[in-house]
């Protein structure tokens, strides 16, 4: 007969081994999921819809200002999808040749959520933030450009919150605060100061 304590010990150890195995398997699966999420495909073309005239607030590094530029892009009817397409059009401007404000390759707006009256949550991908140039002004230009473009073309947005890969992040690249919610009116003052101090 096998002693009872030995059976209990063996059973306990088998349980631990099984548990550890399941835990490792879960960790590996989570890592693979994250890797898949981090995969950055090229910026998707805009969805079909009637072409509309919009204003992009484009950052110019040389002068350190934001300047409005008009563009015509097809926009869907859904308000949330429109917001996403607006920002994708802006990013295309920055990712193209002779960009006035280069962004890192692979930069993308993953989603825009209009979750609360007046609040837009912009979810950027990791490439956008991790590869962004560091500096107070250069980060401020990026944030200002996104907020102004979004609010100027989407009536009713008064506050903007940024996420990176769906998560909160302290700063864009060491300077511009991403932890707090941006007040659109205050960002407007920031943009005016950029223009006035040229």
């Amino acid at each position, binding site marked *: 007969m*096998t002693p009872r304590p*030995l059976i209990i*010990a*063996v059973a306990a*150890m*088998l349980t*631990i*081994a099984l548990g*550890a*195995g399941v*835990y*490792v398997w879960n*960790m*590996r699966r989570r890592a693979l999921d994250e890797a898949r999420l981090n995969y950055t495909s090229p910026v998707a073309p805009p969805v079909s819809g009637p072409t509309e005239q919009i204003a992009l607030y484009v950052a110019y*590094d040389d002068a*350190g200002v934001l300047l409005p530029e008009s563009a015509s892009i097809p926009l869907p009817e859904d308000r949330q999808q429109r917001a996403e397409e607006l920002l994708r059009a802006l990013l295309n401007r920055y990712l193209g040749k002779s960009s006035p404000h280069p962004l890192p390759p692979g930069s993308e707006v993953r989603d825009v959520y209009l979750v609360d009256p007046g609040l837009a949550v912009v979810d950027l991908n990791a490439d956008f933030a991790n590869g962004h*140039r*560091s*500096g*107070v*002004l*250069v980060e*401020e230009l990026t*944030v200002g450009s996104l907020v102004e473009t979004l609010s100027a073309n989407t009536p009713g947005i*008064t*506050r903007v919150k940024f996420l990176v890969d769906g998560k909160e992040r*302290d*700063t864009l690249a*060491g*300077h*511009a*605060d991403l*932890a*707090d*919610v*941006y*007040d659109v009116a*205050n*960002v407007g*003052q*920031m943009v005016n*100061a*950029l223009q006035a*101090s*040229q």
Partner: protein
Amino acid sequence: MAAAPTFRRLVLPITMAAVVAAVFSLLRFSSAAEEKRLSVYSLVANYSLPVVERNGQDYTGLLEALEPLGAVSATTEGAHWRLRYNNQPAEFTAGASRARIRQNNFDLRANFLLENGRGLVPLSTLGPLMSRILGGPVTFHEAARRVFIGSVAIHFTAQVNKETPRGLVMNFSAPVNPMIATEPGKLRMVFNHEPVVEPGSPSLTFGDNVIPSASFSEDNGAAEITINGNAPLFASFSNGNRTITITPASPSAAPTATPASGAQASGAGASGQPQGRGSETYPSLAQYFAVVDASHGGDERGEALTDQLAEKDVTLALARALRQELQARGITTLLLRDGDATITPDQRASLTNEKHPAIYLCLHASSQGHGVRLYTALLPAGGDNTGPLVSWDTAQSAFLPLSRAAADGLALELRRRQVPVRVLLAPLRPLNNISTPAVTVEVAPSSAGVSDLNSATYQQLVAAGVAAGVLAVREKLEAAR
């Protein structure tokens, strides 16, 4: 029937092996190995290199190790890798342990590796190998992966001063700028870039009740001095960063706990003098008119202004220059960071708010644009301040008009010195958490390029302009205080 006892004998070891294997794989999967690195110290440059493991041995790139030291080039022909250092030839062969250096054979003790044109040499022979190539003495602390080329070692002495001011005075043979962190009963100084060496014995005892001992250790390309204390300890720099004085911090001088408290970093220094004159003689920190904050620090390097120059180092130099200029104008100044310490924005704001200065000046540096940019806070949405309670996120709100007036005053004085200035708003912490007039100064190069940022002349010009600006608005700030 015989199978049952055999099974019983085997089941326990098999199960235990399974458990060990599972736990081992779990640990291996969940913990990333610390990146190995090698530090090289020379009269020309101090730098770090990555170390890679191949065939169970540590290797490093030879070309990268030599590049900062002189004219070096390498060519690959098949399995042969030919190196020229200051016109002296060396030849290595992939998969072979014998090399030719300065026309003589050299035994690498392990095979030379060639990976995508990159020549890797075993770390175990790096000391004699570099000595042979450079033609001079090289000391290699192999276990700690630290290479000393020539007589570059920085020595130090440590002595407890039992008179007032009481504290441990450490004198170094050259300026140092360690990363400082404190934890209960300990203050650690990590020297990532300086060739600090052991002072004869790794353990030092002082026979003092407050600071009884210290120890020296080196590992993974860095040296560390740990000071053991029976009270919270505080470090301050003087004598051009050749002297570090460790003092027991009085309750009022110790950094306050912050919402993001972790291992607390201390590094504040005032007036360029060692702090800690005994708890009864500590200056009242509320006396400081200006708090100067060198942004970034420690692990947080800020912008890489060049390959060698980090924003955190420029802001520290600027902060010290500004302190000097302010002091010269009779403005009492506290530096929030006077060493290579990691301090969170919350800690910076807490420390500043506790001191109640008349103005908070935060320094940044940037390779983009020209001149100086002055920023006041761009407040976030929400956090209305009603009643006696003030929102942490918009604590700056009531002080914004005065902050903007101060920024205008600074801009005027900088323009008088022909420095281009822009006055802007920025979403930059901890500006919005500061409950006193607050301005961020971002210094970009003048016309000479990024090298300006490291130029003492340019730093002095900017510091003098900012200090003159503070002096110009002093009465206004004092009145509001």
